[in-house]
């Protein structure tokens, strides 16, 4: 088990290094940070001084090393746009994005998995057909359109739910949560549906496909031949086997949710990392973009690691493989 984790972490390292390199390249070479920082009027002496200040006269690897060292300590410098430490900005925004993404993922799983199981088991019922059609529409609707339509319907016409923002939040240490207030929960509804819908349909289709695949296997036939109850066959044997690939894809989807949050946050002006990123793109705020990228990559790598561990827990074949090393 520890060997397995270590090997996974080691595999993640090159990914993180590659991302860090891209971020650094962006930081150092894209859009001439010196010109951005100096503004319009400057002398050559001022320029040279700044280049020295920033360490831009150092060899590439020294610069990259410094960048990495700083990044590991969470030091990404000041935002060009807001003149505040990048890490602080991101820390402020992370809870909003994570709460939104988790709610959306939860929603997607809570609805998507049962729908997938149902449509897998009862392939020809009218409800399955309805779910399938619904899911196709779900996959075909762009996230931003869903958001706009939900706002139009539930905020403007019906006036039931807020159209933007997080509502009131409660500060728990550095974490600001919207889960503890009524307005925070209300504000969460539309964005999380918008964000979760696409994933929900994706998960539903995935579970269905896996379910069909598993139901065709010999061990399911054998389980039926042993006279086990439908319940035991479908929800014991079939579902558990279905879950293995579903866990992977769901893990990957959680990453996708965080990325797609950029769109949802734009539509709902949700004060998360995605909105910060888009605003930074608009203002060429490279330090924020670089930091966002690295943190997202770290997040994804972590999610992947968790997925691998879950795999490990669900699938005994891996456990033995890991322990015996073959």
């Amino acid at each position, binding site marked *: 088990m520890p060997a397995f984790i270590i090997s996974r972490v080691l595999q993640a390292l090159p990914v993180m290094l590659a991302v860090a390199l891209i971020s650094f390249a962006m930081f150092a070479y894209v859009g001439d940070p010196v010109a951005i920082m100096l503004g319009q009027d400057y002398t050559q002496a001022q320029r040279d001084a700044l280049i020295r200040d920033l360490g831009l006269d150092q060899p590439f690897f020294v610069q990259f090393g410094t960048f990495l060292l700083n990044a590991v300590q969470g030091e990404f410098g000041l935002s060009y746009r807001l003149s505040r430490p990048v890490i602080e900005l991101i820390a402020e925004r992370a809870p909003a994005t994570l709460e939104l993404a988790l709610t959306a993922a939860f929603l997607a799983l809570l609805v998507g998995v049962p729908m997938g199981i149902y449509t897998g088991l009862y392939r020809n019922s009218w409800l399955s057909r309805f779910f399938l059609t619904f899911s196709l529409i779900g996959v075909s609707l762009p996230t931003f359109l869903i958001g706009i339509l939900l706002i139009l319907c539930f905020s403007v016409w019906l006036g039931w739910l807020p159209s933007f923002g997080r509502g009131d939040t409660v500060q728990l240490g550095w974490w600001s949560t919207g889960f503890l207030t009524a307005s925070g929960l209300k504000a969460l509804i539309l964005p999380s549906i918008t964000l979760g819908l696409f994933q929900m349909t994706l998960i539903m289709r995935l579970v269905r496909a896996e379910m069909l695949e598993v139901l065709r296997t*010999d061990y399911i036939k054998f389980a039926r*031949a042993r*006279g086990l*109850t439908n319940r035991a066959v479908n929800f014991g044997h079939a579902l558990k086997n279905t879950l293995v690939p579903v866990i992977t894809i769901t893990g990957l989807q959680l990453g996708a949710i965080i990325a797609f949050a950029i769109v949802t946050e734009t539509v709902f002006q949700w004060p998360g990392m995605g909105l910060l990123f888009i605003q930074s793109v608009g203002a060429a705020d490279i330090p924020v973009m670089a930091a966002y990228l690295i943190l997202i990559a770290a997040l994804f790598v972590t999610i992947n690691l968790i997925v691998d561990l879950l795999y490990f827990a669900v699938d*005994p074949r891996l456990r*033995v493989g890991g322990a015996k090393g073959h």
Partner: protein
Amino acid sequence: MSNTQPLLEVRNLRVEFPTRRGTLVALDDVSFEIQPGEVLGVVGESGAGKSMTGAAIIGLLEPPGRIAGGQILLNGRRIDNLPYKEMRTVRGREIGAIFQDPLTTLNPLYTVGRQLVETMTTHLPIGPGEARKKAIEWLELVGIPAAAQRIDSYPHEFSGGMRQRVVIALALCAEPKLIVADEPTTALDVSIQAQVIALLKTLAREKGTSMMLVTHDMGVIAETADRVAVMYAGRIAEIGAVRQVVKHPSHPYTIGLMGSIPPITHRLERMQQIEGSMPRLSAIPRGCAYNPRCPQVFARCREERPELTPAGETRASCWLYDAESEQQVLRAGAHA
């Protein structure tokens, strides 16, 4: 013919597959019975309908396949038209099944013990604790060493032969009266096949269980079965006591098969000496399905379909053994 009531009786079984090019008849007019304690071997080439017969008996035909005619009786009770829920109590409890590939038959995510326990607690009035004790007994019975420890192992921790032993334990643990074994040794190493067959045979005899043993290994049949049914293109070509069928086959197809019966472990494909191949279900010729390949074919074979009729020591579906056609053949001078 025995006087006792047969354990299993299959009467004129017909299985169809509706497709876009019309309905395919996968099994047509299949009839046979199995007596208590008897081992019936079923042989035939791939696609002859052996496995499908087994699937029809345990009520697990793959959709869209369906039983379109005939009856299946277990102890005189019709089971082919039972609702799914009732049929479930028959499966496992009254008819056990063994599948071809032990690698895929066991759920990889559950320990063998759990799979045994759930089978027993589903069918027998015992609790999990007792079921576990019996599960260890069963594993010992099928020859798993250190069964008490191995019960908590996962399927992938067993070798192929051991897994098939586990499958046998699973098929027998609810003490069914009939086992449908679908090519139980095909996927195994040659060296292990004989052990597993021997185990099956012993257990069936000890427990008084009947068995329908589907295989294309004539050697296995000769070793194990009491009677044998030879299938061709969805029908039974010949059926009879093993010794008779092997020694004195009647149907030209069987004759072709038995042309030279090599020692055990040789497989049907290798000794295939009949020219041509079995027709696809979508292109079964009129008359006798075997007529294009039959060395003794005559006009009637191309027109009418033969029924199973007594032919020497066995029963065969072949016009050669029909009183009427004997005249024709003689007239045609074909029966030289």
